[in-house]
């Protein structure tokens, strides 16, 4: 049976032939590494609170510290190995966001600081800011228009 008779058939055949990612192992690693990163964040946050910072400031401090750690590990050429092992475990926490800004900045240094580092820094993380900020503004506008308890955050 020739699998190349139609595109649909070939796609089906290719899907069958291509090995799947080791999802069980990946999920396990993503779970415990992701949980661990969050727990480190929680410990930092608790320390901040103990030292008298409020909830919001503590959250910001946690973000900055985790971003700094991720940036240092990226700069030391370690983060990509961590990312390969952890998968979503290091991508989904704020560490992944930091890595996605630091890694193109390092990569495109060869094209100069302005258009290379400056211009390409957001090739991966730019969409996160665009969609994050835009959707937050839409949420805010809906809140202003309807001002209902359906949108009750605070």
């Amino acid at each position, binding site marked *: 049976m020739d699998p190349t008779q139609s595109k649909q058939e070939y796609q089906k055949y290719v899907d069958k032939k291509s090995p799947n*990612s080791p*999802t069980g192992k*990946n*999920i396990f690693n*993503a*779970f415990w*590494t*992701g*949980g661990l*990163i*969050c*727990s480190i*964040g*929680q*410990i*930092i946050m*608790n320390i901040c*609170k103990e030292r008298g910072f409020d909830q919001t400031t503590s959250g*910001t401090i946690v*973000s*900055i510290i*985790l*971003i*700094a750690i991720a*940036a*240092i590990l*990226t*700069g030391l*050429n370690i983060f990509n190995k961590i990312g*390969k092992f952890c*998968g*979503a475990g290091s*991508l*989904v*926490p704020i560490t*992944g*966001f930091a890595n*996605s*800004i*630091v*890694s193109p*900045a*390092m990569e495109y240094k060869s094209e100069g*600081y302005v258009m290379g*580092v400056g211009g390409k820094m957001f090739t*991966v*993380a730019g*969409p*996160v800011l665009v*969609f*994050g900020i835009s*959707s*937050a*503004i839409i*949420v*805010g506008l809906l*809140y*202003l228009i309807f001002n209902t308890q359906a*949108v009750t*955050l605070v």
Partner: protein
Amino acid sequence: MNINWANVFDWMQLLRCFLVGGAICIIGQILIDKTKLTPARILVIFVTTGAVLGGLGIYKYVVDFAGAGATVPLTGFGYNLAKGTIESAQQNGLIGVFTGGVKAAAGGIAAAVFFGYIASLIAKPKIKKQ
């Protein structure tokens, strides 16, 4: 400075944080393995979901329950943007809608940009040996 270490290592709180944070990452891992989505798309999905769930008032409960387990993942970044927007909208109306979100997330964004710039000054990318 007196730190009450029993409060810092509140094991039940850390366990909730660990489980919820890990569970959110599992969703991300399933997206990586089962779809052809690139890392950028996955991050966008998480940040948008966080903003929407934040706006609907749902994500607040996850944050109350899991603390950093909900705020450290990128959904928390989206939640933070939405929360900041609404808080500021309550105070300043329409102009607050535009200023609140980024103000709330400013620390993270500025830190990432700054450290990215510093890293590009001193570090060089290397081939992945493995």
